[in-house]
């Protein structure tokens, strides 16, 4: 859990509102980035909060994943 930089010192790779897909083996999860948590992950990687799309808001909640595990959906 070590780092050398502050949260605002890098350009964000993913931003709020981006549509993304998370590949989990045989399953793909489509989601939207709802929060930029900054570069606080392992090795200074960006973490983002995502919420599944196509699912009622009452049935899903946001959770955090490294941006590098996500693929942008054009």
């Amino acid at each position, binding site marked *: *859990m*070590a*780092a*050398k*930089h*502050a*949260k*605002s010192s890098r350009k964000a790779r993913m931003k709020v509102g981006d549509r993304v897909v*998370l*590949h*989990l*083996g045989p*399953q793909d*999860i489509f989601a939207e980035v709802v929060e930029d*948590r*900054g*570069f*606080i*992950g*392992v090795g*200074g*990687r960006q*973490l983002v909060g995502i919420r599944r799309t196509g699912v009622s808001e009452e049935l899903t*909640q946001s*959770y*955090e*994943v*490294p941006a590098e595990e996500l693929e942008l959906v054009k």
Partner: protein
Amino acid sequence: MPSRSLVTWRIDAARALDEIEGAHRAVGGTGRGRRFATQQINQAYAVLLSSQFQWFCRDLHSEAVDELAGAITIPMIRHVFRTQCVAGRKLDFGNPNPGNIGSDFGRFTMDFWPLVMNSDSRNPRRRASLEALNRWRNAIAHQDFKTVLTQGISELGLREVRQWRTACDAFAHEFDRVVAAHVDTILSRPSK
């Protein structure tokens, strides 16, 4: 080496809090108007301190989750772990009071507060400061000062907020250390 969360606390949070200190100094005069203005600044200072400390605690929690999740090689299981670690996390929406902090870090099977309390004899007093800060934070946010009234006085002094800030700063370093040590223990690696 400190966590990214602690670095952010030391730099970004300190800068924001110092700006409030600067605003306090910038209010001139000696009359009743100054007293009212500084009271508003002291209250803003307390709310900002609470929110910055909440930010730090939440970041530290996320950082620990990412460290631990990295040890899980199967993507789906890693995903389940991540979602369960932050589902209903109290620091996402609640004050950084001792109960919420202990509850969230307790998810890592650690006796958070006993570890913190036993590491420094000053920590019980710091914990009392953290509780007082969050009582004031709620009183200010809801404009309901019944719970913080002391002898009928509901004014918040700069000295109190500075004491709370000192306590939060000490706790930021303590939390960083005990969480890093616990993550190292879980991952069976020597502490740095």
